[in-house]
């Protein structure tokens, strides 16, 4: 049995149209036009135990809606989903004790109290045995390096510290499935990296199944072998990240620095020039020709340095969305 199975899942939101202006506001008191948006349209995918899947898409693509349905917060309009064999929106305690959702933009801790109080409350609510609680807490706080901030009220913590505490609160009951909705949003590069390293380690050690959404492609690149891409509510790609890159990217980036000034016209025919200063050029070259072009450049020009780079993954995803 797959850990997560989604079949034909759809969600339609209804809302009322309201035009700007006082007169329209007055009108809307008496008559409102009901509109519908299909946030998720008939999606299917399956995730096996221990997988760490990147769930990508632009804002409003339906990522969070899908995660909310998988967590039992929202009822779907149509279709079905099973997490560990349970239907999430029935909100059975048996399932709830086995998964967690972390939302980067939402606080689940008691704002005015030290994080430790929220952990203890979770211990009781999830009915975690004392020894297991202490062991897990020790493990998580060591891995995240936050032992010294557990007694400080949450509202006084920095965003990075708070996020780490959120992760501890979510993982304290040792869930088998974890949904992460933009866990690194708004964090500085160091904190982002810490969280990323933590997730990598945790996923490997505990064989926990993770769905991750993020706008930071570094997250995805570092953590996910498989990605599911959603746009306008439909899945447009589901497969390996490597394969996605191969499919959509047919060129590499050559970055060349010269020891002396080079006439731009002499570079015609080598590739598409993206940037050019008198002694430096960045160009796109077909993947298969990258090596030959580099050799030719080395032979024909006064080259100081030459770099062959992969296209950035942001670019890859953007290409996919454009289609």
């Amino acid at each position, binding site marked *: 049995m797959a850990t997560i199975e989604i079949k034909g899942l759809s969600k339609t*939101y209804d809302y009322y149209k309201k035009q700007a202006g006082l007169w329209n506001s007055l009108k809307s008191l008496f008559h409102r036009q009901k509109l519908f948006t299909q946030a998720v349209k008939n999606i299917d995918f399956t995730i096996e135990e221990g997988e760490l899947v990147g769930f990508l898409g632009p804002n409003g693509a339906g990522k*969070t809606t899908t995660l*909310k349905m998988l*967590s*039992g*917060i*929202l*009822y779907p309009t149509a279709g079905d989903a099973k997490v560990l064999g349970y239907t999430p929106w029935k*909100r059975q*305690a048996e399932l*709830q*004790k086995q*998964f*967690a*959702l972390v*939302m980067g*933009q*939402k606080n*689940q801790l*008691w704002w*005015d*109290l030290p994080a430790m*109080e929220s952990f*203890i*409350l*979770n*211990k*009781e*609510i*999830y*009915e975690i045995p004392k020894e297991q609680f202490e062991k897990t807490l020790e493990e998580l706080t060591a891995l995240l390096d936050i032992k010294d901030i557990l007694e400080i*009220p949450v509202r006084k913590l920095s965003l990075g510290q708070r996020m780490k505490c959120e992760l501890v609160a979510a993982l304290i009951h040792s869930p088998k499935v974890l949904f992460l*909705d933009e866990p690194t949003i708004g964090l500085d590069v160091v904190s982002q990296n810490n969280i990323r390293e933590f997730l990598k380690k945790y996923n490997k050690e505990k064989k926990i199944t993770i769905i991750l959404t993020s706008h930071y492609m570094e997250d995805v690149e570092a953590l996910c072998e498989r990605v599911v891409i959603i746009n306008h509510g439909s899945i447009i790609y589901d497969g390996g990240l490597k394969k996605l890159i191969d499919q959509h990217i047919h060129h590499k980036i050559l970055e060349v620095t010269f020891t002396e000034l080079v006439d731009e016209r002499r570079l015609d025919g080598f590739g598409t020039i993206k940037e050019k200063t008198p002694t430096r050029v960045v160009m796109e070259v077909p993947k298969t020709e990258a090596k030959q072009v580099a050799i030719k450049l080395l032979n024909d020009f006064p080259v100081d340095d030459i770099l062959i780079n992969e296209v950035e993954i942001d670019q890859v995803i953007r290409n996919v969305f454009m289609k």
Partner: protein
Amino acid sequence: MSKYFTIIKTAWQRSMVYRFDIIAYRVGDLMEMLIIILMWSAIYNGNTKIGDYTLPEMLTYLIIGNLVAVLLRNFLYEVISKDIKDGLLSAHLLKPIPYFRYIIIREIGRIAMVTMISGATQLVVTIFFIDRIILNNDPVVISVIVLMVVLAFIIEMLVSYLTGLIAFWQDEVNGLHYIILSLRKFFAGGYFPLSLLPAWFVTTSFLLPFAYSFFVPAQLYLGKLSIHAGLKGIAIELVWIVLLYLFIKITWHFGIKKYEGVGI
């Protein structure tokens, strides 16, 4: 069981963070009560009786009634409507404990704290006016009153919870709650004893749940209502608790399907 105790303890700790707020509320309560006492003293001004109330009876009515009202005050509607509007409910829906149970227990925890402080300040006022109010220490009457107030406490929480759930449909519930609050205070006899009004009015208010959180306990205390009437009131309260619980179940059932967990 330790689950519920921990929720209460955590709520308690949280309210300690807002010590000043609690004290400020108490000061407000005391001021309101002093104003009411002064006002009625001025209204009596030489009259021995208004309706069937002497001045000491009226003051006793107001002091006892206000004590009960303060103990029963809760902010569930605010908590719940905010949870729904701001999407905070989402975090609760993930947890293996029903939202209703969690919130009610947490609020009991919070109130337990406030109650102790209110009780203490109210006692000060009572002592201050001790020679102007009527004392009643009949154990049967006191027991009936305590039971009635406990049930009224449950009713108040359920009404407040139900009002909060309206946020599933309506973005703003404060106005609606204000209407309910004013009607409730009126029907509870919080402004003046209901018995100053026509008899049919009193009869009607006995069928509503609100009179049991002010008027009826105070009347019982003054001996203006029989124990029998008090027990009948308790039966009516029980019926209301069942009804309100059912309303809440139904409202939740439909409301939760409308919930979109916005703002995430």
